């Protein structure tokens, strides 16, 4: 830590004498007020006020400064100096993550000290320690995710305003929220640990949450490291992303979330596979929207193919293409593991047709995202695609129902128990249209422009 120039620079910036004195003074005064209002007692009321102070400092302020740590360098024209330095991507990753937030952690730890003081005579020490760990690790997740998302955006644009930073802050907070919520509610009223099933084994919920928070903090840090490598023009192959996908899919496959009826209707293995499949779909959408994918990338890929440079092609290839291959393979596995028809909550489901249609919907949506990115240049392409897709799954089909055109919703929603024609027909047509438009855009923006300009 002593040798990390980026961390030291942040210490110089953040820890001025004035700030070192002001933080405990403000936190102390606010806590003292609560203590006096509470009848000069240290109990759950003062603990909650300390926790609220912690959340305000760590989740709002901290996630904002973490999200801004690279953006501010870009806006201040100092980012090139850092990119040109001899600092490695790992030093820059943790130097920025923990350096930019070092002052908010100073405030956060003071709050957690007050939280400890408030609860020490009320809660068992191990439970209190675990609660504090949940707060701290959730903060790390929020900061790391905010920085990760902002760095992902840096790959596509170099101009940032408050709206973008607020968005990254919200994403960071959203990433921390499940762990924070489940972690804090991990006990029953009698103080006994709640439990959860993971691969059919019983584990204390709080321990699983803590492990998940640690592991996903590390994954987020690894993600920031990969982004830093990209900023330093180092080649990033797809292996780390694939490892993350494999880990996450395997982890979620083990969690028992499905409705018990579904579990009964499927052999046990297919219920796990369906959990993993759902996570695979989510990650496919995430990477399809997140990664850069303009015409220049495809011209470069085309050139690698022409040169038979398959290693470069594989490294530069969009991760989304690999994900689509995995979704296809996972769909085939699901088809083989499951019954053709199942019933969930008295609703019959044509499971095989629905699985095929699901893959086609993913194909259409990913194709649409790529179509926008290849057809025109705009840093807002992915946000536009997200909004259009959100509308197509919500406002448009709901409007169709309101005006009595229910059958047309088959174009926008998965049909659970219809025949092959209605379940597959509309989505097949849409996939064909999207890919025909993509082929046209490819010819003009990738092939023709690449040969002409």
């Amino acid at each position: 830590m002593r040798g990390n120039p980026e961390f030291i620079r942040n210490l110089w910036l953040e820890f001025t004498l004035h700030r070192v004195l002001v933080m405990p003074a403000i936190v102390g005064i606010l806590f003292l007020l609560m203590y006096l209002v509470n009848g000069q007692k240290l109990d759950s009321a003062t603990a909650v006020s300390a926790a609220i102070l912690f959340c305000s400092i760590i989740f709002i302020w901290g996630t904002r400064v973490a999200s801004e740590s690279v953006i501010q360098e870009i806006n201040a024209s100092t980012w090139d100096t850092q990119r040109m330095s001899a600092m490695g991507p790992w030093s820059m990753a943790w130097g920025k993550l923990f350096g930019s937030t070092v002052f908010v952690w100073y405030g956060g730890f003071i709050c957690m000290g007050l939280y400890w003081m408030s609860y020490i005579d009320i809660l068992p020490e191990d439970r209190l320690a675990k609660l504090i760990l949940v707060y701290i690790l959730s903060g790390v997740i929020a900061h790391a995710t905010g920085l990760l998302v902002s760095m992902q955006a840096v790959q596509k644009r170099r101009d940032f305003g408050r709206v973008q930073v607020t968005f990254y802050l919200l994403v960071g907070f959203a990433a921390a929220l499940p762990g924070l919520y489940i972690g804090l509610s991990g006990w029953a009223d009698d103080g006994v640990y709640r439990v959860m099933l993971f691969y059919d084994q019983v584990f204390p919920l709080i321990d699983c949450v803590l492990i998940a928070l640690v592991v996903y903090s590390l994954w987020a840090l690894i993600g920031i490291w990969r982004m830093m490598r990209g900023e330093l023009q180092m080649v990033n192959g797809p292996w780390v992303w694939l490892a993350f996908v494999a880990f996450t899919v395997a982890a979620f496959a083990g969690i028992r979330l499905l409705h018990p009826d579904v579990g009964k209707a499927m052999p046990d293995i297919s219920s796990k596979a369906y959990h993993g499949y759902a996570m695979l779909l989510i990650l496919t959408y995430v990477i399809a929207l997140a990664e850069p994918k303009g015409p220049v990338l495809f011209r470069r890929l085309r050139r690698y193919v022409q040169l038979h440079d398959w290693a470069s092609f594989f490294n530069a290839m969009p991760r989304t293409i690999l994900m689509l291959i995995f979704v296809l393979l996972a769909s085939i596995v699901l088809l083989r593991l499951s019954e053709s028809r199942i019933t969930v909550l008295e609703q019959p489901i044509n499971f095989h047709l629905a699985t095929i249609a699901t893959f086609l919907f993913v194909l259409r949506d990913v194709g649409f995202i790529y179509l926008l990115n290849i057809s025109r240049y705009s840093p807002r392409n992915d946000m536009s695609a997200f909004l259009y897709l959100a509308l197509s799954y919500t406002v448009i089909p709901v409007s169709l129902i309101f005006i009595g055109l229910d059958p047309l919703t088959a174009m926008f929603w998965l049909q659970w128990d219809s025949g092959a024609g209605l379940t597959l027909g509309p989505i097949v047509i849409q996939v064909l249209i999207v890919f025909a438009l993509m082929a046209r855009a490819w010819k003009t923006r990738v092939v023709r422009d690449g040969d002409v300009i």
Partner: protein
Amino acid sequence: MIEVKNLIFEYPTKRALHDVSCEIKTGSITALVGPNGAGKTTLIRCVVGLHGPFSGQVLFDGVGVHEHPRDCHRRMAYLSDFFGVYDQLTVRQCLTYTARAYRVSGDKVGTVVEAAAERLNLTDRLREKSGALSRGLRQRLAIAQAIVHEPEFLVLDEPASGLDPEARQSLSMLLIGLRDAGMTLLVSSHILAELEGYCTDMLIMREGRIIDSRQLAGELSKARRLRIDLAAPNSDLLALLENTAGVAQASVDDDVATLMFSGDVAAQHALLRHLVEAGIPVAGLRENRVALQGAYIAQIHEYDSGKKPA
């Protein structure tokens, strides 16, 4: 030192570099000139490894800049035209941070910081916040940051923009000093008259292409371009010049001769005496200060009129 091979760079809507190849020699100060939008900054950013090219290669002493960016960055530095410094840090902290970021060993950091500050006349400003410095002083601080680790190759993009005449003069002297200390420099600028004062080589860019690459003076700018005005044309002059020590690239056009001369002022005096004694009707002998601008304008016109690029 730097070899650029068939570099192509594309923005989403435009190809900014078209198969660019050039070379930057060790110990040179190379001027990179061209109109706005010619691709100078894009080329520079590719050369220092901040932009990944569509295709092509940049080699720094044989090492691929894009294949081994960190190895190369330790030995080079780049000052952008829109540079920034950390306003909340003191000048000393800025320099110390940069030295550490370039992996200068701990016991040497203080020494290199002092040396860089002294070189840029910032020694008495070390305790000041960089945000409180004037534009010229911030420029000096930015250059001090760039050279604090003693890079072998320094790239400056429009370093003189926004500087007053005095600051530009001191910048010129600084760049010559850095060259004399062994650094190789690549300087992009619009102010040709100033580049002429210290540049040894010139690359002219237009529409994403290098249209001319030339050495401005022999022996890496120890030579100067001289102009001889004659009272009357003389047919013996060219042969005489070509056989004179220290003279290169001599040409005679009617009653004006130009040449590159690598001698000092005493040698210039001897040359003048030699010409007069040989019966050449010399009316004047002076240093030609418009070589860079003239060459630049001529090349741009030649390119625009459709002639084949050099």
